[in-house]
């Protein structure tokens, strides 16, 4: 699997204020790449750099090996995206908007019907863009980004402002594209849960610096532990046992449950120990994964779960 998108030591400042510094990352073919960070971390700036809307002060960006400065047209033929909002021409119909983009990208006219079908917009495609709901605008944006069969699609907070059903729709669509079309998807978000659910690889950015990058599995395994809620019987015995165990730290004790911090790879061992001591697990849930833990540490708190 080759790298579809590569960023090498990219630096960009507005005036004297650096927005992103020395960002390096690579997106592999057919993966959903999560670009995670709190608001103002430099996500949109990075995306605009990748799409050639901004030019980098230093560093290189290439799409399928084509440098976006030197070989802009070749690079752009393999990439598409939606930046910030899916802005299109309000006085034109959805179809006309797609037609404009298809012409600009050199896509066939029949392709328009295909992508409209893909995002399920057949019924409203002749209506004016300004009459669409936000969800429909998002879907049309995705359709537009699919027009010229890009190798990689960049989506800037695609679930922003969508209801749960809409979010699920987007998530399913992205997984579908990656799995059945082998397309790479670069998706940014400030909400961790979403990322964990749909991404293969996650990259966390804060204050313009990449703080963590790796597959979701890797990030969850290594590093700090997650917090889990155990419902146990009998409670007293369980508390004593946990206090003996050095690998487990109690975070909170409730009426019939204990929240504890534990490394993921030790959960199996710990559960066996409970079983051996005749402590019954009546319920088990995740309060916070290890990824959330690192994200919280990185971004300095805030309600990540919400």
């Amino acid at each position, binding site marked *: 699997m080759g790298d579809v998108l590569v960023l090498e030591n990219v630096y960009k400042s507005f005036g004297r204020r650096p927005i992103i510094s020395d960002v390096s990352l690579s997106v592999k073919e057919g993966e959903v790449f999560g670009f995670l960070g709190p608001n103002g971390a430099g996500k949109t700036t990075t995306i605009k750099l990748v799409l050639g*809307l901004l030019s980098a002060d230093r560093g290189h960006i290439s799409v399928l090996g084509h440098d976006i400065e030197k070989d802009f047209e070749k690079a752009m033929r393999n990439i598409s995206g939606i*930046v910030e909002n899916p802005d*299109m021409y*309000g*006085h*034109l119909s959805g179809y006309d908007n797609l037609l404009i983009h298809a012409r600009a990208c050199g896509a066939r006219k029949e392709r328009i019907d295909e992508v409209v079908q893909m995002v399920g917009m057949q019924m409203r495609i002749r209506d004016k863009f300004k009459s669409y709901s936000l969800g429909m605008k998002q879907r049309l944006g995705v359709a537009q980004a699919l027009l010229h069969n890009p190798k990689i699609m960049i989506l800037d907070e695609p679930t922003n402002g969508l209801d749960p059903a809409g979010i699920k729709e987007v998530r399913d669509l992205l997984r579908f594209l990656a799995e059945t079309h082998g397309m790479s998807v670069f998706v940014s978000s400030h909400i961790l849960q979403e990322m964990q659910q749909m991404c293969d690889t996650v990259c966390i950015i804060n204050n313009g610096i990449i703080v963590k990058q790796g597959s979701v599995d890797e990030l969850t395994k290594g590093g700090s532990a997650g917090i889990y809620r155990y419902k146990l019987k009998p409670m007293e015995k369980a508390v004593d046992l946990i206090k003996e165990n050095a690998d487990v730290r109690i975070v909170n004790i409730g009426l019939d449950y204990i929240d504890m911090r534990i490394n993921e790879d030790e959960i199996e061992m710990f559960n066996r120990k409970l079983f051996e001591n005749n402590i019954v697990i009546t319920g088990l849930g995740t309060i916070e994964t290890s990824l959330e833990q690192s994200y919280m540490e990185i971004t300095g708190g805030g309600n990540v779960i919400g």
Partner: protein
Amino acid sequence: MSLVKHGALLKNERLKLYKKPSTWVLMGVIVLMTLLNLLFTRIFIRSYESFSPTWQDQYSSQMENMARELKSNPDDTYSKQSLETLKYLLENEIEPTDWRTDVAIEYYNIKYGIIESKIPSEPNQQTQNPTDIEELDEKTKNRLEKLDNLLKNSDWKAFINLKIDDLKSGYSQSANEQEKQVDIEMYELYLERNIVPVAQNANYYYHGGGIDFDNITWKNRQVQSMRENKLNLVRGETTSGVLLTHAQRKNIENEIAASLKRLSTNTPPITYDSFLGMLEGTSTSLSLLSILLIVYAGNIFATEYGSGTIKLLLITPHRRKRIFWSKVLLMLELTAIALALIFALAFLISGAFTGFKGIASMQVLSLFGRIVHMPYLMYIVIRFLLMLLPVIAYGALAMMMSVVTRKSAVAIAVTMLIMFGSNILMTILIALSGRMVVPGIKFLLFANTQIENYLPSAQSVFNINMPNTVDATMTLGFSIAMLAVYTACFLWIARDSFCRRDVK
């Protein structure tokens, strides 16, 4: 390949612009204003014509006035003289434009002793020598006899010969030998070209209206304007007393050559109310076109920035340069469409009023320092196209503003302000240009936007054509070059800014 890509982008720009209802609303307003402009001028000409009385009516009513005057003041020689002149003119059916009007007026002037300019104007010389007075009486008698003969024989050639003799003998005075020569040359031209002269004192009793002087007397007008032009050359200054520049001298020489050619090819001028005259008059609607273009050029980039669609536009696999030029091309296309609409409408309406009469008329014109003989319709097309140049320059300015400010309201307002503000400023500066010329002002954009000042028109064919510019050294070629330079600069700045700047 590149052309195909350009074509795709241009098609996109078209779709965006032409599907906007406001585009057609504004276009409709422009067309409507052209229409109203045409109808208004037409109605104005009509009403002006219909209210003017015939020359006979005018003469009769003046005679009544004179008679009334005489009743209250029987010794009024002026009234007596006028009464008799008018009576003679009416009885012999001598139209105001008839050269005999001049002869009759001079005859009765002498008869009634009111001799104005014909007598040497230094009274000292006359009183010094009493024999002069007797000589004068002899001369007067002679003169009256000559004039009487002219009226009886109705021989215009004899009239011209008399005029030439007057100049040669010193009976008519000229300022100097050179000017005298110019006048003699002019009279000889009448004989040479067989032009029946027209009364120079036609307006003595006749005060405008029903007679179309331009049509009846165009050859005379040509000779007269040649005379004016030649005198200006001889004097080395304009009629208003400003020294001639090299450019103006050249221009006058061309005008003289054009007048001569008009006479030799027997090419009558185009009149206002003819088909071509009306069509030409609609070129004023081009200023409306500049408003249209400024609005669209001011919008074309700024709205993309404002609505965020610029991002969509720039992430397509096209260099920004190409996207920029597709928008420039669209603006040119829009201008062409609006121009075609205005022209077609003007063509049809002028045709409806005049029945397309004289559509194939030829005309001799002085263009770019050369004398050309071409169909006037073709010239009108050239005139429209040349007058389009400042419109395009302002369009380019608005485009630059649109890219640089990224706000359509600001771009449009600033460009309009520059256009209207400078127009007012230039009108003032042109009025003052006889007395003072601000150095370097001719290099400003605004000084070069009034292209029509250089261009001959149906009107200027009769008149001494002196370009109305802030600096007399300016020529049509200079202004076209300046407009081209400015347009190129505006576009270059716009392109550079569009291609370089970040989309934050």
